[in-house]
Structures are given as structure tokens and as C-alpha cells.
């Protein structure tokens, strides 16, 4: 069982997804719901041993499975997780479970299709994080677009068709270049193994390196693929559209998990495979991250739509992740920056899912996301208001919530690089507090704003459970960050070692 743990984690949700599709009927949605909650719960339980059996001191992939898949291209079914990816598999299984509960009563049309899409997507995302083979990664990375496309397009808001198409084509645009660069690397190394890619061209006297030109072209391809997914300024414009139109569950998964895949891609591919190009051009990405943090934060300030506001705040928060990733001191990435980026990714997974769920709770009652339609919600929904306050505070990075840890670490790292980078990043704490708390004030406080708010009822048991679980996670990570960071150290050390290598070598290194 344990030696095939990752396979179980990937294929269990997919199996249950297909099962839901097969037995679910629109007349009897209850069957579909029960099966999906069971499947998602089982998936989450299966993912827990990843955390508890994880060996903190081991920097390489663990729970490895290796089978030959397509010998013609030397593509292997090669799975394994290290500190960089393990949390996201667990987080994804966790969020999927919550999403299934969150959609329990809200989704009324084509229930079985809805749950099936989420379960299949959950398995595919797990697969992408667990792949140790580039082509396997790519297959999962692309395939997950299909369920997400359907989720946004079928169950989304009024402009769902536009949003789903934009989402799909934007992400596909980036990843097709990734495909070409993987094929190029395959032609150079004879394998799609990620570790081989990472070792390729390292200047150790035996293999002569990889020219800066090739590295730069690869970095451009990686940048397009992953920056679109993160999303980074200026290729971020699909995200607000996708988020606003997606159903609550779709927004939760999109923000909590799939954005992380972009940042994960940078850590897994860009830093180790093209270290010299990153050293050379990383500063451009740092600048773009700072623009995302400050400028997109300011955009969030003026939003009138709650979901759009949280979407822009996601972009701003992900700016911290890319900032932490690409800050180099003397040609070496900083420990603070990388660990901060990872902690920020995990924390943002909890917080953004919680924020979108809160907005979903309000939307289900009022069918409006406009801030102006609300006001005085606290008078009618006190329990909800308390939870929402906690998540809003976490969103602005209050100490003792999970949001603080990552941002703090990244700013610490930035101080080592350049005071002004840290200063610019620090500004966002103010901007972030401004847009989040201002929105909170307008929605929750004050006198009851409209008849709709007057008739609101507080959260039911199902919603309470979801909110409570998320609240425990947010507080837990804020108070005991060591539970998370302890698992990161070894893998981050390995990554720093790989990223600090030099590959620019003698002439004629490439075939």
C-alpha cells in the first residue's frame, strides 16, 4: 500500500469521479453527492500519510514509484514528492473535500457532472505535483484544463463562456511552449526525467554545460508557461474573469491549488534547470513581482465586486511567492525567500479558499457579489461575521494567522537583497490591510443596508463545519508554523544547491 501510496492518491479521486458520472442521475442527486463525499474524504485520508510518514531530513523525492510508461520516448510513470510538492498534494485533497461539501446544496443542475469534474481534477492536480517525469507532469498539467474549463463554463456566472475560453486558451498558450522546451531537453538528454533535466549541463568536468542562449530561451518558455498560471503581471488578466464567473468551488480550487502549480513549476523547473539564465534575468521577474504586489494591490482597492477584489488580492499575494523565489544574493537564492514563498503558497491555499467560500456563502443568499448591495451583515449573521473577520485578517497578514508567516519570511529575505525591495514589498501589508478591511467594513459593519441583508440567515451546520475547519487551519499554521517549515528545510537546501550551480560551459556542450 505505502509503496503505491501516490498512485492511490492520484487515481482514487479519478475513479470515484468516473463512478459518480456513471451512476449519478439528475433525478437522484443524493447518490452522486454521497459517493463524491466518500471519494473526496477517502482521497484526503489517503494523502495524510504523506505528511506523517514524510522524512524531514531527506531532500530528494520520497514515496517514489517508477514504471515504464512509453519506452518509445523514454517516458516513465515516475512519481515522488519532496518538501516542495508534498504539502500541495495534501492541501489539494483537503480543499477538494471541502469543495464537495461546499457544493452540497448550492449546485442543483447536473450535480453528478459537477462533483465528477472536481474529483477528476483533484486526481489530475495530485498527479501534476507528484510527477518526477516532465512529460507525465505535462500530461497532468494540461489534462486538468479540461475539467476546469467545464466547471467554469457550465456552472459559472453570466459571462462564463467568455471566461472559460479565456482561461483555457491563456493557460494553453503558456504550456505549449513548455512542451517544446521539454522536447528540446529530451533531445539533449535522452530522457524526460526531471532530475536528469536538472543535472543536465552542470559544470563538473564530465559534462560540458548549456549555453546562456539556450538557457535564456528555456527560461522564456518556462516563464510563459508558469507566469500565466501563477498569474504574474502582465499576464494576469484571465484570473479576475475566471474567478468572477466560476462557481464557488471552482474559485476555491483555482485560487488555492492551481495557481500554486505555476509557482511550483518555477521552483521545480526554472531554478534548477536554467540557473545561469535565472541569475541573469531573475531581476526582471523580481520587478514584475513587485509590480504585481503593489500595483495589483492598488487595483484591488478600487474593486466593487467582492470576488474580483479577492482575485486581485490573490495576484498580489502570489507576487510575494515569485518575489521570494527569484531573489538572489551573490548568485544564490535566499533561504528566507524560498521558504517564505512556500509558506506563502500553503497559507494562501487556506486563506483564499476561505475567502472565496465566505463570498460564496453570501452569494448563495443574496445572489450578488457587489459590495454596495451589502452592509450590516454582522447584525444578521454574527457567526459568519466572526469567521469572515478572521480570514480577512489572515488575508492582510496579521501575526498569529497563516498569512503572516510567508510574507514575513519573504520580507526578511528581501532585506538581505535590497532595502528598497523589502520596502516596496512591505507597502503591500498596508495596501492589503486597506482593501481587505475596507471591504469587510462595507460588507459586514454598519446599519443593515438593504432588504436582502435584512432577511439573511446565519450559516447552517454544513457551512459552519467548512468555516471551522478552515479557521483551525489558518490559526494552526499561524501559531505553529514549525509543523510546516520543518518538512521544507531539506528540500529547500537541495534546491538552493541546484540553483547555485553553474551550467554555462565550454563551447560545444550541446549536441
Amino acid at each position: 500500500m505505502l509503496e503505491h501510496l501516490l498512485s492511490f492518491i492520484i487515481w482514487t479521486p479519478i475513479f470515484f469521479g468516473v463512478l459518480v458520472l456513471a451512476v449519478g442521475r439528475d433525478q437522484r442527486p443524493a447518490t452522486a453527492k454521497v459517493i463524491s463525499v466518500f471519494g473526496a474524504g477517502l482521497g484526503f485520508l489517503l494523502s495524510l500519510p504523506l505528511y506523517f510518514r514524510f522524512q524531514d531530513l531527506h531532500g530528494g523525492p520520497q514515496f517514489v514509484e517508477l514504471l515504464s510508461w512509453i519506452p518509445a520516448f523514454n517516458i516513465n510513470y515516475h512519481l515522488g514528492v519532496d518538501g516542495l510538492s508534498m504539502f500541495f498534494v495534501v492541501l489539494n485533497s483537503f480543499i477538494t473535500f471541502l469543495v464537495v461539501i461546499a457544493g452540497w446544496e448550492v449546485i442543483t443542475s447536473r450535480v453528478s457532472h459537477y462533483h465528477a469534474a472536481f474529483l477528476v481534477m483533484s486526481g489530475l492536480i495530485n498527479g501534476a505535483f507528484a510527477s518526477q517525469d516532465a512529460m507525465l507532469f505535462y500530461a497532468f498539467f494540461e489534462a486538468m484544463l479540461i475539467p476546469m474549463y467545464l466547471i467554469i463554463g457550465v456552472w459559472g456566472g453570466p459571462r462564463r463562456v467568455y471566461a472559460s475560453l479565456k482561461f483555457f486558451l491563456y493557460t494553453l498558450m503558456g504550456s505549449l511552449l513548455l512542451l517544446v522546451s521539454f522536447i528540446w531537453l529530451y533531445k539533449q538528454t535522452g530522457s524526460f526525467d526531471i532530475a536528469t533535466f536538472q543535472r543536465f549541463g552542470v559544470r563538473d568536468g564530465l559534462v560540458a554545460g548549456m549555453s546562456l542562449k539556450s538557457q535564456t530561451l528555456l527560461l522564456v518558455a518556462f516563464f510563459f508557461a508558469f507566469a500565466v498560471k501563477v498569474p504574474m503581471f502582465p499576464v494576469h488578466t484571465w484570473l479576475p474573469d475566471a474567478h468572477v464567473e466560476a462557481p464557488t468551488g471552482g474559485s476555491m480550487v483555482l485560487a488555492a491549488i492551481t495557481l500554486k502549480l505555476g509557482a511550483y513549476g518555477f521552483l521545480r523547473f526554472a531554478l534548477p534547470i536554467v540557473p545561469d539564465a535565472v541569475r541573469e534575468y531573475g531581476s526582471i521577474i523580481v520587478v514584475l513581482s513587485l509590480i504585481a504586489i503593489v500595483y495589483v494591490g492598488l487595483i484591488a482597492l478600487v474593486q466593487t465586486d467582492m470576488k474580483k477584489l479577492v482575485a486581485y488580492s490573490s495576484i498580489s499575494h502570489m507576487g510575494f511567492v515569485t518575489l521570494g523565489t527569484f531573489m538572489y544574493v551573490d548568485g544564490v537564492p535566499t533561504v528566507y525567500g524560498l521558504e517564505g514563498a512556500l509558506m506563502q503558497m500553503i497559507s494562501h491555499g487556506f486563506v483564499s479558499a476561505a475567502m472565496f467560500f465566505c463570498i460564496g456563502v453570501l452569494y448563495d443568499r443574496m445572489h450578488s457579489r457587489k459590495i454596495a448591495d451589502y452592509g450590516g451583515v454582522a447584525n444578521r449573521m454574527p457567526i459568519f461575521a466572526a469567521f469572515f473577520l478572521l480570514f480577512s485578517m489572515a488575508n492582510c497578514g496579521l501575526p498569529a494567522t497563516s498569512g503572516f508567516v510567508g510574507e514575513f519570511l519573504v520580507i526578511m529575505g528581501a532585506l538581505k537583497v535590497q532595502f528598497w525591495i523589502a520596502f516596496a514589498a512591505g507597502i503591500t501589508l498596508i495596501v492589503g490591510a486597506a482593501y481587505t478591511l475596507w471591504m469587510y467594513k462595507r460588507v459586514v459593519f454598519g446599519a443593515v443596508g438593504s432588504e436582502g441583508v435584512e432577511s439573511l440567515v446565519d450559516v447552517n451546520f454544513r457551512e459552519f463545519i467548512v468555516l471551522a475547519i478552515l479557521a483551525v487551519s489558518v490559526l494552526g499554521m499561524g501559531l505553529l508554523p514549525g509543523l510546516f517549515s520543518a518538512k521544507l528545510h531539506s528540500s529547500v537546501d537541495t534546491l538552493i544547491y541546484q540553483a547555485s550551480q553553474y551550467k554555462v560551459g565550454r563551447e560545444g556542450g550541446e549536441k
Partner: protein
Amino acid sequence: MISPWNSADLTFLKPELWLLCSACVILLLDLVSKDQRKAVTHWLSLLSLGIAAILVLAGGVKSPQIVFSGMYVVDQLSGLLKFGSACLVGLVLIYGRQYFIDRSMLTGEVYVLSLFGLLGMFVMTSAFSFLTLYMGLELLSLSLYAMVALRKDDSLAIEASMKYFILGALASGMLLYGMSMLYGATGSLHLSEVSARIAQGQTSRDFLVLGLIFIVAGIAFKLGTVPFHMWVPDVYQGAPTPITMLIGSAPKLAAVAFVIRLLVQGLPAAFVDWQSMLIVLSVASIVVGNVAAIAQQNIKRMLAYSTISHMGFMLLGLIAGDAGGVAASIFYALVYSFTTISGFGILLSLTRTGFESDNLANFKGLVKRSPWLALMMLMVMFSMAGIPAFVGFFAKLSVISAIVSHGFVWLAVLAVAFSLIGAFYYLRVVKVMFFDDSDLDVVDSPFSLKCFVSVNALLLLVAGLIPQPFLSICADAVNLSLLG
């Protein structure tokens, strides 16, 4: 020197002889049959296709056998492609039956012409001299011209048929002209001798290149690649849907074989020349096919432009020119034909008496009317768009990896950039099926049709999850045929 043929050569010709005889017998039987539904003809045709496929498999050879004084070759490559074409023609007859019955177009000619067309494909696939190549091509083309015109009272169909015939005849003329020049330059019609003479350097290069240009132009016409693609959309739209399905599937396999025999096997010495011509054709097809498909509202026209772009992708493998590239092209052509045929099969499941489902709008809300068919069409579309887990992705992967290994990274980038545009119109079909509402009726297609279409579409997913056996069949066939 080439020896005269003896009767032992006939044993290599069993599938072709069987097809010829059974087509004639079916033609005669059909004359006396009074059955309006043509049940006997239908089952006999399927039976003879099945037996032909079995004969192809049974007649498999390890190393290439050149027979009939060097006119004809039987090798693994021809075996693979003949088997594929026989299956595809069988599927066409199965999928198209209800359509023909509903429109009282079901005449014995449909079956006989299909069988003769398949015979033409068999000859093309195995031809090893200019004469046999041309003979096979014409047998196939003439059958197809007649089938496009089956609907005698439909002006679109007649127009399509005329266009197809005139442009096809023009292309055949070009091909013949090019072949005659090569004959003049080398003094032989046999591909092996042509190749040997050119390699010896006794030929005039100008003559050779001029002949080559005409040959490539003729081939491009038959494949439907830009700039010789004008007939494709009109013929696809005008022909009855099952005939469009036939034109879009099996003959593409024969055409690939034709290109491989003529260029890769016959003119390897002129590789540099035809490589650059194919690059132009391929780039133009990928660009024009994908861009023009966006504007189409008629799904048959859309699939026509999609075919043009797929043919461009298929040529990428031949541009690489080595065994790996040729295998990639064959894999691509096989994947493409089986994907297209399941797409058309679903299209046919939606047609009714007096109702063609050509228009994109007729797919509206399909998920509510027939969730299963909608799911199948979803798989077909994502496979055509080349999204992983479906076999179309591995087809794209193999051709792109073939050209990257020859240093054509720019070509790979261009190809994937335009496949992004391609994704748009495939997604639009999915959008129409899944996101739009519709007031059309519930689909009630025959159960058997649904079964076959489903198996066909599910195969795309299965082959995408386990592509290795299919890839290695193609690679082995090419290695044993071109090198052995």
C-alpha cells in the same frame, strides 16, 4: 536486373484479389436483390472487408517482398496501412448505413464503389513503380468522384463532385507530367531503380527538380494541403456525410503511403529539395487550416479546414525524413483518421430523416439531450486539439519530437502556436454542446451505431493512456520496411 514475374507472386496479392472478386460478386448479387434495405449487400460487404483485413494480417512478411517485376511491394508498412484502411472503410459502411436508408440513397453502388476504392488504396499502398502508383490513385479517385455525386438531385453535391473531379484530374495530370520527367531523367519507372540512378549521379539535376515540383504539387492536391486545398472544404460540405467521412479517413492513409513510396523510398537522393517544398506546404497548411477553421459555422467545413491543418502536421514527420519521422507521420495519419471517423460517426448519430446536423448550432445543448454522445464528442474534440490523456497529444508529440531532433525548433514553435488557435475552434464545439441551451429534440440514434461510435471514441482515450503498443507497431513497420 528485374526478373519477369511468376505465379508465385500472386500469393502476395491475396487481399487485392479477394477484394476484386468480392466486389464483382457483390455487384452482381445486388442486381438481383430486391431488398430495399440492402441487408445482404451490407453484410456481404462487411464480411469481405473483414476477410480482406484478415488476409492482410495473415500475409504479413518480415522483410519487404518486391514482386511483379518490381511493380509491387509487400512489407510491414503496407500491411499496417492496408489493415487500417480496411477497418476504416468498414466503419464508414457501419456508420453511414442509417443515413443512406433514411435518404433512400442506399444503392448497391455505395458498397461496390467503397470496395473498389479500398482496392485502389491497397494498390497505392503497395505500389513500387510510377505506373502502379498512378493506377491505384486513379482507381481510388474515380470511385470517390462517383460517390460524391451520389445525391443526384442536390446542387451542392453536384458542384462538389465537379470541383473534385476537375481539380483531381488536373492534379493527376501534374503528377503524370512530373513522373514522365523523372522517367526521362532516369530511364526507369521502378522506384528502386529511379533511386539508384539518381544516387549514381547520372541524371540532370534541373530535370529532376522540375519533375519533383510537379510531383509534389500533385501530391499536395491529393492530400489537400495549402496552396492546393481549395477543393477540400467544398467537397467536405457538398458530399453526403458518410462519403465525407470516407474521403476524410482511409484515403489519407493511402496518401501517406503514396508520399512515403514516392519521396522517401523513390527520391531519397533529392531529399533536400523535397524537404524544403514540404516545409512550405506544411507551414502554409498549419497556418491557413487553423485560421480559416475559426470562421466556419458548418461543422463539415470546419472539419475540412481541420483536416488541412492535420495534413500539415502529418507532413512534419516526413520533413524529418528519417525512420523515426516517417513512423511519426504514419502514427499521426492513423490517429487522425480514427479520430476523424469517430467525429463524423457522432455527427451521423445526430442526423435524422430530412435533417442534416451539419451546422454547429445543431450541437447546442447536446449534453442535455444525449450526455453520452456529448462526452464522446468532447473526447474527439480534445483529442483533435492535442490535449494529453487523448491519443491526439501523442501524435503531435511524436511529429514535433521528430522535427526538433533535426533542429527545426522554429517549426515546432510555429506548429504549437497554431495548434493553440486550433484549440479555439475545437473548444467552441465543446462550448456549444455543454454550455448552450437548446430546444432541439432528444437524440435517438440506433443503439448499434452508438455502440460503435462509443468504442471508437473511447479507444482514443485508451490509446492515449497506453500509447506504447501503437507507437511501437508504427516504428517496427517503418524500420522493417525502409531499412530491411
